[in-house]
C-alpha cells in the first residue's frame, strides 16, 4: 500500500457521499478476504511461536436494511471478525469496504469519520457500560466526542429521544447502570450505538446474556429499529434459533473460515456442509413430539474443535468429519456454489440432506 492510496481512500468523495443513506437492498458493507492472526510470542527471547489464525480469509457483503447472521461455536472467530470490521482490531490482511471506502487502510483519524456509520453493541451489558456514568452521560458521550452535543436540541433532547427510541423512560436518564436490569442495560448499549445515526450495527451476541422473556423483548426492539431506521445488521451469535429468527442471510463459521453462506431458508432447510448439518441437528427442538425423530437424525460429532494456532491442513473440519477422505487433508475446499442455489459451501463432498422441520 502506498501513501497515495491511503490518501485517496480516506479523502475520496465528498462528505455527503459518505453519510448519505444507502437505499434498502443496496450493498453497504463488503468484507473481502479478511484475515486476523494473533501472533504468539513466548520463550526466553520472545520469539515468534506462530499465530492463532482466528479469522482466515472470509468474505461477505451486507445490504442496507438487511441482517446477516454470523454463527458458529466458541473460538470460530465470529467475534474477532466483528471487532476487526469496526477496527477495534487491526486486520492482518483483507479489505473492509464501507461504500467503497476501505476501512482497513484508513488511519485512526480518517477512521473517525467512517466510525459514525458503523457502530457495535456488545454481549455483556454489565461490562460494556461505565458503572460511574449516568445513563444520560453514557448515551451523550458519542455525541460529545463528535462535537454534536450542542444546544437543547442536539444535546439533552437528543438523548431523551434516543432513550425513548429504545423503550426506556427518559426520566430515568440520571440513573446509573446498576439500577437497571440486564435487558434495560442492553437497551442503553443500543441507544449509545444509535446516537450518531449509523447505517450499520455490528451486534456481538447482543441477547446471549439475557433470560428468554427479556431476550424476546430485545430481539423485537432490534427488528423495529431496523424497520424504522433502515439499519444494516451483522448479527453475531451462537444461538441458531435466534439467528434464524432475525437474519435474512447467514454465514456459518468454523475455525476461522466461512463454511456455508446463504439465505436463512437455504442454510436451515437445505444445508450442504457437514458441519452445518451436524450443528443444526445438535440443537434440541422445543417440541417433545419431535423428540424421537430429532434424536434419530442427530449427528453427534466426535472430539473437539482443533487448536486455531495449528489448524488441520486442507479442510479444517476434516478431523471431526465423517465424510473425510484423502483429498480433504491435501486440498482446501473453496467456498463455492456447488448446486446452483446461489448458496455456496466449502466442502468437497457437499450434499443435500433433508433438514428437520
Amino acid at each position, binding site marked *: 500500500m502506498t501513501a497515495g492510496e491511503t490518501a485517496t481512500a480516506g479523502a475520496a468523495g465528498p462528505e455527503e457521499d459518505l453519510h448519505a443513506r444507502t437505499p434498502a437492498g443496496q450493498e453497504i458493507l463488503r468484507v473481502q478476504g479478511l484475515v486476523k492472526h494473533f501472533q504468539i510470542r513466548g520463550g526466553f527471547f520472545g520469539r515468534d511461536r506462530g499465530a492463532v489464525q482466528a479469522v482466515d480469509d472470509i468474505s461477505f457483503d451486507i445490504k442496507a436494511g438487511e441482517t446477516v447472521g454470523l454463527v458458529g*461455536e*466458541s473460538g470460530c472467530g465470529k467475534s474477532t471478525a466483528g471487532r476487526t470490521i469496526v477496527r477495534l482490531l487491526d486486520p492482518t490482511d483483507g479489505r473492509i469496504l464501507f461504500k467503497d471506502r476501505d476501512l482497513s487502510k484508513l488511519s485512526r483519524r480518517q477512521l473517525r469519520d467512517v466510525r459514525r456509520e458503523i457502530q457495535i453493541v456488545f454481549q455483556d451489558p454489565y461490562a460494556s457500560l461505565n458503572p460511574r456514568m449516568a445513563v444520560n452521560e453514557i448515551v451523550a458521550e458519542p455525541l460529545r466526542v463528535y462535537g454534536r452535543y450542542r444546544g437543547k436540541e442536539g444535546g439533552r433532547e437528543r438523548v431523551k429521544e434516543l432513550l425513548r427510541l429504545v423503550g426506556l423512560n427518559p426520566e430515568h436518564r440520571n440513573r446509573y447502570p446498576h439500577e437497571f*436490569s440486564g*435487558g*434495560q442495560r442492553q437497551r442503553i448499549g443500543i441507544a449509545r450505538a444509535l446516537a450518531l445515526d449509523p447505517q450499520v450495527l455490528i451486534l456481538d451476541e447482543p441477547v446471549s446474556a439475557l*433470560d*428468554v*422473556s*427479556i*431476550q*424476546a*423483548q430485545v*430481539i*423485537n426492539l432490534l*427488528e423495529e429499529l431496523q424497520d424504522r431506521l433502515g439499519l444494516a445488521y451483522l448479527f453475531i451469535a*451462537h*444461538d*441458531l*434459533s*435466534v439467528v*434464524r*429468527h*432475525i437474519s435474512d442471510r447467514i454465514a456459518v463459521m468454523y475455525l476461522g473460515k466461512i463454511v456455508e453462506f446463504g439465505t*436463512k431458508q437455504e442454510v*436451515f432447510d437445505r444445508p450442504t456442509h457437514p458441519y452445518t448439518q*451436524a*450443528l*443444526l*441437528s*445438535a*440443537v*434440541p*427442538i*422445543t*417440541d*417433545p*413430539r*419431535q*423428540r424421537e425423530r*430429532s*434424536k434419530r437424525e*442427530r449427528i*453427534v*460429532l466426535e472430539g*473437539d*474443535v482443533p487448536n486455531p494456532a495449528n489448524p488441520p491442513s486442507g479442510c479444517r473440519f476434516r478431523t471431526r468429519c465423517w465424510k473425510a477422505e484423502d483429498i480433504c487433508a491435501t486440498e482446501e475446499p473453496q467456498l463455492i456454489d456447488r448446486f446452483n442455489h446461489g448458496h455456496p459451501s466449502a466442502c468437497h463432498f457437499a450434499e443435500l440432506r433433508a433438514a*428437520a*422441520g
Partner: protein
Amino acid sequence: MAAGQPILSIRDLVTEFVTPDGVVHAVDHVSYDVYPGETVGVVGESGSGKSVTAMSVLGLIPQPPGRISNGEIIFEDRDLLTLSHKQLRRIRGKDIAMVFQDPMTSLNPVLTIGAQMAEAVTTHEDVSDEVARKRCVELLELVNVPDADARFDQYPHEFSGGMRQRAMIAMAIANQPKLLIADEPTTALDVTIQAQVLEVLETAQDETNAGTILITHDLGLIAEMADRVVVMYGGRVVETGDVDQIFHSPRHPYTLGLMASLPRLDTDLERLEPIPGSPPSLISLPSGCAFHPRCRLGAGRARCRTDEPPLYQLGDGHASACHFHDEMRLEIERIEQTTGASIAEEGA
C-alpha cells in the same frame, strides 16, 4: 414412568436468605416428587428458585445467611432436613449425586481426574485402589472418554470442557446413585459438545435407573430430555405436568409466555411475543399471584392481585397456579395467531 413410590418428595419447602436489603424468598412453599427412572425437568429464568431448591435437597445451603424455615425433603423414608452433616455426607455422592454447570470449578485442579474419581468410590465403599481404578476407567469408557486408561492419570486442565463434564457424569454415577441432580449441565458448552454430553447423560441414566432432576433455562433441553416438567417463577411452582401437557396445552400464562418468547429452529415465526416487564424481586414479591404485573391473561383483575393462587389440580397429573387456567385455550389461540407458532397442534 411414574410408578410406585417416589424416590424424592419435596414438601412445602421454604428456603430464605437474610441480606442487608431484606429477606430473599428464594424458594416459597415448593413441592414436587421424583420417581425412579424418570427425568423431572425444572425450568425457570434466573432467580426463579430452581437451583436453590436443588441445593436445599443436597444440604448445600450456607446457613447463615440461608435458612430452610419450612418443609420436608423425603428421600427413602427419611427427611433429609433432619439429618446431621455426617449422615448427609454418607448419602451425598452415593445415593444422591450431582452434576453442576461448570466442571472447572467443581473439579480440584491439583488432583488428577482419576484421583478424584477414585476418591468418590473409596469414600463410600471399602475397595482397594486397583478395584477403584478399574471401575473408574470403565466409567470413563462409558462416557466416551477416549484412551481412558491414560486419561485417568491426567489433570482437569488437560481435558476439554466437554470431556470434563463427561468425566463429572462418570464420577456422579460411580456409586450407582438413586437420584441424580443435574444443574444446567450443558449451559457452558457449545451445542455440538452438548450433544455429546446429553448422549452420555442418557447412557448414565439407563445404567443406573436413577431418578433425575434436570435444572435448566433451556426449553429445548426440557422438550428433549424430561418426562415431567416443573415450571418455576418467583420461587414458586406455577405449573407442573408431563412434558406433552406443558408444551402443547400449557395452563399457566407464564409457561405460554416463555414459549411465545422463544425463536424456533424448525420454523419461521412471524414475530415473538415477549413477556412484558422484568422478573420480580424476591425480596418484595408482588401480592397475590407473583406473575400478575406481567400477565396479559389476568389483565389487572382484582383476584390476581389479592389472592395467591393455589396449585389447581387439572387431572392427569397436570396442575396450574392460575385462577383463570380455564381461559388458557383462548389465550393459546391468540398467541398462535400473533406469533405464527402452532402450540395446541394435534398429533406429531
